[in-house]
């Protein structure tokens, strides 16, 4: 474990902040840190650039984090996990705070990138101005297409054959719908999903984040090839948009 000071905080909205760390962490997009918020808990967070994490206030610890002002010290373990892999023609599909690792990827890729980005409402869309070719949806219609990002993809008649990699990150229900859509289009093998599970050790020992097929989210993941997730999405508690 080591410590890093938060240099500056960008408060995107009431619930979302980006914490800029005092130095870069040698890493690749898709990798995560175990961040110990002293006085609260240690939680896994994706890097949103080599020197930042982007957090949405959900639990007690993340609620404290988004209110940081800069100057605070964080305990850090990592970076851990497998990263996204490079490509030449990329499609990025993000839902909500799932944009965090994909934003790092967007700037890291030396490729032509198309972004599909969905959120609940306009104020939850972060980093939007950084993307060139971006298609946006919001659940409440406050910006872009009214609906979810998978509906927007279907509506836009996206031809998945045009891309050599499809990168996905977002809430479970979105990922499940996306999995089904990509499967139907025979694009699972060239897609990469960053997924979340409750995590304790982050180093592949405790077994908290093990998937149905034995793969560990913290070691073999959090980025998995679409076809590796068949046992996760095809027999479990995951619900798609259609099932709701």
């Amino acid at each position, binding site marked *: *474990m080591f*410590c890093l000071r938060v240099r500056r905080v960008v408060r995107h909205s009431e619930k979302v902040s980006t914490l800029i760390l005092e130095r870069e962490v040698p890493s690749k997009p898709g990798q995560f840190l*175990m961040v*110990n918020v*002293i006085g609260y*808990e*240690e*939680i896994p967070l994706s890097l949103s650039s080599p020197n930042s994490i982007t957090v949405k206030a959900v639990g007690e610890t993340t609620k404290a984090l988004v209110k940081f002002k800069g100057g605070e*010290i964080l*305990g850090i*373990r990592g970076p851990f996990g497998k990263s996204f892999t490079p490509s030449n023609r990329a499609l990025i599909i993000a839902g909500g705070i799932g944009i965090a690792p994909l934003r790092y990827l967007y700037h890291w890729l030396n490729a032509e990138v198309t972004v599909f980005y969905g959120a609940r409402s306009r104020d939850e869309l972060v980093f939007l101005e950084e993307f060139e070719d971006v298609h946006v949806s919001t659940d409440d219609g406050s910006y872009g297409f009214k609906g979810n990002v998978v509906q927007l993809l279907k509506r836009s008649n996206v031809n998945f054959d045009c891309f050599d990699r499809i990168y996905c990150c977002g809430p479970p229900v979105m990922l499940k719908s996306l999995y089904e859509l990509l499967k139907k289009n025979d694009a699972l093998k060239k897609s990469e999903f960053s997924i979340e599970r409750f995590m*304790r*050790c*982050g*180093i*592949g*020992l*405790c*077994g*908290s984040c*093990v*998937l*149905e*097929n*034995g*793969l*560990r989210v913290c*070691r*073999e993941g959090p980025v998995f090839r679409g076809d590796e997730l068949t046992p996760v999405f095809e027999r479990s508690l995951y619900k798609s948009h259609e099932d709701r």
Partner: protein
Amino acid sequence: MEVGRLNLKNPIMLASGILGSHVGSLNRIAKQAGAVVTKSVGLEGREGYKNPCIVTWECGILNAVGLSSPPAKDFARELRSFNKTCPLIVSLFGSNPEEFVELVKIFDFADGFELNLSCPHAKGLGLEVGRDFDLVYEIIRKVKGKTNKPVFAKVSANLDYVELAKVCESAKADGIVAINTVRGMAIDIVSKRPVLSNVSGGVSGKAIKPIALKCVWDIYEEVNIPVIGCGGISNWKDVVEFALAGAKAVQVGSAFYHSYDVIGNILEGLNSYLRINGLRFEDLVGLAHRR
């Protein structure tokens, strides 16, 4: 090979507490392991301690997960889809004989049981039970009366383990597993507070190998039931050392930090060593004790 009436596929087992909460990881490890031991389970679910509950340092790992586990009945349902490519040993924790007996009934499909008398960081459980030798005797007697499956007692190095091993033997335990993690802690010098949310925890990995080896040696000298070595084993040479000290089998845990396939890798090296020396694994057991 038989160890305490348990038929092992090979002498390398998965230690309790590592990757043992879900059947997905157990199924994967079972393909290589001589047997797998699940994460310890009690009648009621336990959330465990808050993160940080695990930290690594130069010589090993320090953890205070706090016996987090689902309720026994839920875990039993999970284990029903175990692939049976090796024996399944369920590790149990409880605070009195009745709880252990109840647990044995719930997991009647297991191939054996390991009694957790040694977790160093759970109030009223593990090591705190293991300290009370009369209670340990009662627990093992009652559990043995309820099942004919092999029952192993996992002991701590943080107490008089030789005396405890003798108590376990007199209560007719089928074997002793030595050792669990050793009590320890870490303090963060920047925040100037203990790193683990529980303040102290258990040390595992390379740091405790010599401690575990000495425990196996001592217990082997004093009891006749099989000893299963556990503590800091990360390669085939460690396994040979533990066998020479008297271990009839070993358990591997923290070394999974290096590879998911660590048991397969150890077996490869071990089998080469045995072949070159013209020995069977059984020939090594306790060999270093000869005078």
